[in-house]
């Protein structure tokens, strides 16, 4: 059974039709990439899945349950994590704190217990810390552990955002342009991590990406989008050679 299904979803902003009748299904364990020119509606699809926007039409299913109308803060505990195109970290907190905020959906201690910082809260905190340290080790960012995000270089922030998403222990991970702003080596490293996350952690990934080399390296299937509509869906080479896709990239809007 597919882990995520979008069924004819659409999004209008006033007069702008950012996404129109898009349907796709993502299988467990695969890396599913979305490509398309600027303004194609890729980020909008992510924003619908993470429930920042409510689709104007259509339905979304995650793990067999309808998530079209669930409140946005419940998405993380359902097992969907995401990163943002322009990095939305908590800039005035340390790297470690950022990762611990990623653990928020797993914390179940009550308000009064927190006010008194009871033993139960302390033990839960230690468990979260252990999980966060695992992620720190996985990504090799130990030396930045206690640094403010605002003081970290862009490339490291990109990695931290990935780490924060991993702290959610998601089953579905949405990566919005993981390579944007990274140099060639950093992009390659990002590609390896994506591979590791899928292989070692068994996480399903939907990735929006412009770098075709990275897309080719990690994706099982690719969906090409232009002006809010699907142009092609298939393996990365199939999509890259699709005449419609080529035309969309070269000639702007599709015919």
């Amino acid at each position, binding site marked *: 059974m597919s882990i995520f299904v979008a069924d004819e979803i659409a999004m209008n902003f006033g007069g702008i039709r950012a996404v129109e009748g898009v349907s796709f299904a993502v299988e467990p364990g695969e890396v599913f990439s979305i490509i398309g020119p600027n303004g194609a509606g890729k980020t909008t699809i992510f924003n619908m899945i993470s429930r920042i926007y409510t689709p104007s039409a259509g339905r979304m299913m995650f793990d067999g349950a309808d998530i079209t109308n669930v409140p946005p803060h419940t998405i993380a505990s359902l097992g969907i994590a995401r990163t943002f195109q322009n990095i939305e970290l908590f800039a005035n907190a340390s790297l470690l704190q950022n990762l611990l905020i990623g653990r*928020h959906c797993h914390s179940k201690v009550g308000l009064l217990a927190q006010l008194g910082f009871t033993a139960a809260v302390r033990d839960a905190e230690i468990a979260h810390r252990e999980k966060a340290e695992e992620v720190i080790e996985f990504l090799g960012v130990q030396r930045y552990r206690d640094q403010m995000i605002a003081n970290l270089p862009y490339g490291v922030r990109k990695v931290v955002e990935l780490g924060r998403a991993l702290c959610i222990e998601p089953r579905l991970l949405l990566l919005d342009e993981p390579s944007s702003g990274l140099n060639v080596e950093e992009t390659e490293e990002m590609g390896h991590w994506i591979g590791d996350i899928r292989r070692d952690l068994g996480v399903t990934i939907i990735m929006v990406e412009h770098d075709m080399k990275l897309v080719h390296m990690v994706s099982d299937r690719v969906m090409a989008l232009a002006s809010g509509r699907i142009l092609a869906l298939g393996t990365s080479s199939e999509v890259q050679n699709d005449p419609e896709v080529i035309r969309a990239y070269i000639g702007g809007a599709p015919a």
Partner: protein
Amino acid sequence: MIAPFKVSYRQDLLLAKTPAAKASYAVLLVALAVIPLVMGEFYVGELGGLFIFAIAGVGLMLLTGYTGLVSLGHAAFLGIGAYAHAIMLAQGLPFLISLPLAGVITAAFGVAIGVPTLRMSGLYLAISTLAFGSIIGTVLQKWDALTGGFDGFPVRTPTILGWKIQGAIGTYYTSLIVLVLVIWLALNILRAPLGRAMVAIRDSEISAQSMGINLAVTKSIAFGVSAGITGLAGGLYAHYVRHLAPDSFDILLSIQLVTIVFIGGLGSIHGAIFGAVFMRLLPQAIAMVRDDLPFGLGRTPGLEPSLFGLILVLVIMFEPGGINGRWMKLKHWCKSFPLHRRAASRRQKSYAKSERLR
């Protein structure tokens, strides 16, 4: 100096992480405990007032410095706490019940104010808390039946377990104890998921939401906790002034409270304390030099507020990190003494960052 090696994650969760820190806090506490035995009544009274403003400062710091929600109406919570406590005392409730209850009542008001403002962004939140504060201030001024009109409301001297909390010394010790408790509470919040959720909301609402943080609930709790702590300060303030005057909880007081957190340094409990110290010491310092000032400046009533404004302006222009920011830089400078580089502590400039969108 190299930071001592951390032994365990458990140690990271302690409030005082090194033996040195533990020792210095213990010394500070002991010193504060013996001050009334060696200092004059006047100074003890002023220090009691300082503790009360520090409590309110910690309350507001949680909301403004950590959750990023600006309140320009916190004097209202101080007033609600003060009147609730004084009225309950007058009804014969014991102090140990009345003061916490005043805190709880004020917290309820805080939530009631927090909920309608949940969807407001920075600027509108500031303006509407200002409006709320001035409404409550006016109500306290005009509601004679409650507040005793122009004559004010005499505050009853309470007893705790047979010990009369009287005069400056009584207020000093009760305020000190409440301050320590409140700081402990604030630090607990900050090392628990709630505190991190607050920080997350401050820095990015959208991504906080995607991390599973319920914005409405967290903001309401932040408002409630902040108001509740400020209400406790209000209850103590009633004892400090002994006679509640109907016009004492106005916009000016609200502005003083935000100034405490701002000058102290946003996002730091130390900052709230530093800010309160500054705020309460400034008038004393002015009083000391008043007679020596040229041109009769010392006699103008505007001297204190204008210096207050001037310092606020200078801090924002030249040290946006507040006193705490300066303190951290100083510590950093001492630690890395011969190797200090200016660039390390230079603030990054950002241009025209829009806050219309958050």
